[in-house]
C-alpha cells in the first residue's frame, strides 16, 4: 500500500512535468501539424537556465533573503529567455518552411535540436551540472508515503500554469485566435487573425512552460546535462499523443497518466525497462485507440 501511494505520488510529480512539456508539442502540432523535435531542447535550456539564474541570485544574496521569491524569479526568468529561444527558433527554422514539403520542417527541427544540444555542451561543458543544494528535502507523510514540499511545489505550480494556459486559450482574444488558427489556418487568416503572430505566441507559450518544467526537474533531480532534452521530449511527446495530439486538456491528462504508468511499471514490473515502458504504452494505446485518450477521430478528407 505504501509503495503504491509512493509510486503514484512520484508518478504524479514526473507526470506533471511531462504534461507541461507535452503542452508545447500539442499546441504547435495543433496549429502547424509539425512535430517540434527541438522542443525537448528548450526544456533542457530551461533546466540549465534554472541553475545559472539561481546561482546568480545566490551570489546577489536574494536566495538567502527569500528562497520562494528567488525560485519564482528563476522560473519566470528562465521562462522568458526560453520563450525568446522558442520564438527565434520558429522564425529561423520553421517559418521559411511553412509551405515546404511536410518532412522539410521536421528535418529542420532535428537540425535545431542537434545544434542546441551542442551549443549548450560547448558553452556549459560536457559534464553534469549540479543544482545548488538549497532546496529543502523535507516533507510530510500521507498514508505511509513520503511527500516532499518540493513535489508539492512541482505539482501545484504545474497545475497553476496549466490552469493559466487554459484560461488564456479560452478567455483571451489571442486565445480565441489560436483556437481559430488550429481549426483552419487559412480561414482564420481571412477573418483577420494575424496567423504569424498566433504562431509566435504558440511557440512563446510552449517554450515558457517547457522552461518551467526544466527548472523544476533540475530542482527535483539536482542534476542536468545537455542530453536530457531528448528523452524528456520523447516522453512528453508520448504524453501528447496519449492524450490526443493537438488537444490541450489531452496533453495534461496524457502527461499525468504516463507519469503514473511509468512509475508503477518501474516500481512493480521491471525497473530496468522503465524508459521502454512509456513507449510500450504508447504503441499499445495508438493501436487500440489511435486518436488518443481525449482525441476525436478526424475522418480523412478527400
Amino acid at each position: 500500500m505504501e509503495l503504491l501511494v509512493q509510486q503514484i505520488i512520484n508518478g504524479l510529480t514526473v507526470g506533471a512535468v511531462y504534461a507541461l512539456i507535452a503542452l508545447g508539442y500539442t499546441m504547435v502540432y495543433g496549429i502547424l501539424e509539425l512535430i517540434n523535435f527541438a522542443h525537448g531542447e528548450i526544456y533542457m535550456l530551461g533546466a540549465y537556465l534554472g541553475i545559472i539564474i539561481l546561482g546568480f541570485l545566490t551570489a546577489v544574496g536574494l536566495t538567502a533573503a527569500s528562497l520562494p521569491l528567488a525560485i519564482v524569479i528563476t522560473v519566470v526568468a528562465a521562462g522568458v529567455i526560453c520563450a525568446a529561444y522558442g520564438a527565434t527558433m520558429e522564425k529561423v527554422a520553421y517559418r521559411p518552411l511553412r509551405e515546404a514539403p511536410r518532412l522539410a520542417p521536421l528535418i529542420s527541427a532535428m537540425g535545431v535540436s542537434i545544434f542546441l544540444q551542442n551549443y549548450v555542451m560547448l558553452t556549459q561543458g560536457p559534464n553534469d551540472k549540479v543544482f545548488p543544494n538549497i532546496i529543502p528535502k523535507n516533507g510530510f507523510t500521507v498514508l505511509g508515503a513520503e511527500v516532499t514540499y518540493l513535489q508539492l511545489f512541482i505539482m501545484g505550480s504545474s497545475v497553476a500554469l496549466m490552469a493559466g494556459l487554459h484560461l488564456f486559450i479560452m478567455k483571451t482574444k489571442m486565445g480565441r485566435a489560436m483556437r481559430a488558427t488550429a481549426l483552419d489556418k487559412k480561414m482564420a487568416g481571412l477573418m483577420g487573425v494575424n496567423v504569424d503572430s498566433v504562431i509566435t505566441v504558440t511557440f512563446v507559450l510552449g517554450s515558457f512552460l517547457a522552461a518551467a518544467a526544466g527548472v523544476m526537474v533540475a530542482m527535483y533531480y539536482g542534476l542536468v546535462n545537455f542530453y536530457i532534452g531528448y528523452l524528456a521530449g520523447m516522453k512528453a511527446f508520448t504524453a501528447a499523443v496519449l492524450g490526443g495530439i493537438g488537444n490541450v486538456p489531452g496533453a495534461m491528462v496524457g502527461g499525468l497518466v504516463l507519469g503514473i504508468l511509468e512509475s508503477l511499471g518501474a516500481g512493480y514490473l521491471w525497473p530496468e525497462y522503465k524508459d521502454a515502458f512509456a513507449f510500450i504504452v504508447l504503441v499499445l494505446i495508438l493501436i487500440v485507440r489511435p486518436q488518443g485518450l481525449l482525441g476525436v477521430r478526424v475522418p480523412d478528407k478527400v
Partner: protein
Amino acid sequence: MTMHKNPIIRTVLISLWFGLLILPFSDVAFSAEVSAAIAVSLFAVMGLRAVMRSGAASGLRAASARISDTASMLANSRKGIPALTALAIFLCVFPVFADRYALDLATQSGIYIVLALGLNIVVGQTGLLVLGYVAFYAVGAYTYAILGTAHGVNFWAALPIAVFLAGIFGIMLGAPALRLRGDYLAIVTLGFGEITRIVLNNWDSLTGGPNGISGVPRPSTGFVAFSSLSHFYYLVLALVVLTIFLVKRLNDSRIGRAWIAIREDEIAAEAMGVNTMMLKLLAFMLGAMLAGLAGAFYSAKMGFVSPESFNFLESVIILCMVVLGGMGSIAGVVVGALVLYLLPEALRDLQQYRMLIFGAAMVTIMVFRPQGILGTRRRGIELSLKETA
C-alpha cells in the same frame, strides 16, 4: 524579433538579439563577439545580394538548376554513361591509392547508402514517415553477430537469416502500425525503435547488454577470406551496386508506381484499385530487409556491435540522408548519404564544433532547398484550382 524597415538598423537589431540570447549561457565578451560576427556576416550577405541583383543572379540561378538536373540526367540518359563509367573505374581502383582511413570511410558510406535507399522505399517512395528505422538495422547486425560468435555460423549462411528476420520484424511492426496515419505512424515506429534498443541493452544473456558483442568474424568463402579492408570494400561496393539496381527496377515497376500513387494521395490510389495495405506492408518489409542486410555487413565490418550504435540519432541521420538528398530520387539519396556521413568526418578538424555546424547545416539546407539537394520538382500535375480553393 523586432522588424525594422531600415536594413542596417534591422541587421544591428538581429545581431544584438542573438547576442542577448547567448548571454545567459556565456559571458559578455563572448556574446559581444558572436553578435559582431553575426552582424558582419549579415552585412556580407546583404552586399552579396546587392551584387547578385545587378545581373549575376539569373546566371547563378541557372547554374544551380543545372547542377540539380545533371544528376538525374546522369542516372537516366545516355549522356551520363561516360561519367558513370569514369565513376565506376574510380570506385574500382579506389583501394589502390586510398589509405586505411579513406577506405574505412568509403566502406561505411556504402553501408549508409544501402540503409538510406532502404528507408527511401518507405519514406521517399511510399510516403510513410518512419522514425525507428534503425531497429531493423540493429536486428540485422545482432542476428549476424550472435550467429557468427556464439554459433559459428558462416556470414553467407547468416546473411539470409538476418535479412529474413529483419523482414519479419518489418511485417510485425508494419501490420498494426500501418492502420495509423502520418505522424502517429512516425511516433509508433519511434517507440518501436526505442524499445528495440532498450531490449538490446537489457537482454544480457543474448545480446551482451551495454557491452555488446565483440569478435564478430569477417565473411569468408572457400577461396577468398574478406579479411582485409579492401576486400570488404569491394564486397560493399557490390552490395551498393546491387541495391541501386534493385531499387531502380522496383521504382520503375508497377509496384513502384503504386507506391508513388499512395504517397501522392492514398485515398485516390485506393479508389483506383491499388491494394494500399499490401503495398505499404511490402514497402515496409523491403525497407526492413535492406536495413537487415546493411546491418549484417555493418557488424561484419566493425567486428563489434553494441546498443549505442542503434540510437534514435542514428534513425534521424538516416532519415535526414533521405530527405536532405532529395526524397524519392535515388541519386539524391546517395548524395544525401554521402554528404551526411562524410560532412561530420570532414569537419573533424573543427572537433567539438562539428556537430554544432552539422545541426546548423541541416537547417540551412532545408531552408534554402526544402525539396532536398537533388530533389526533383514535384512530379505530377497539381490542379491550378487548388490555389484558389
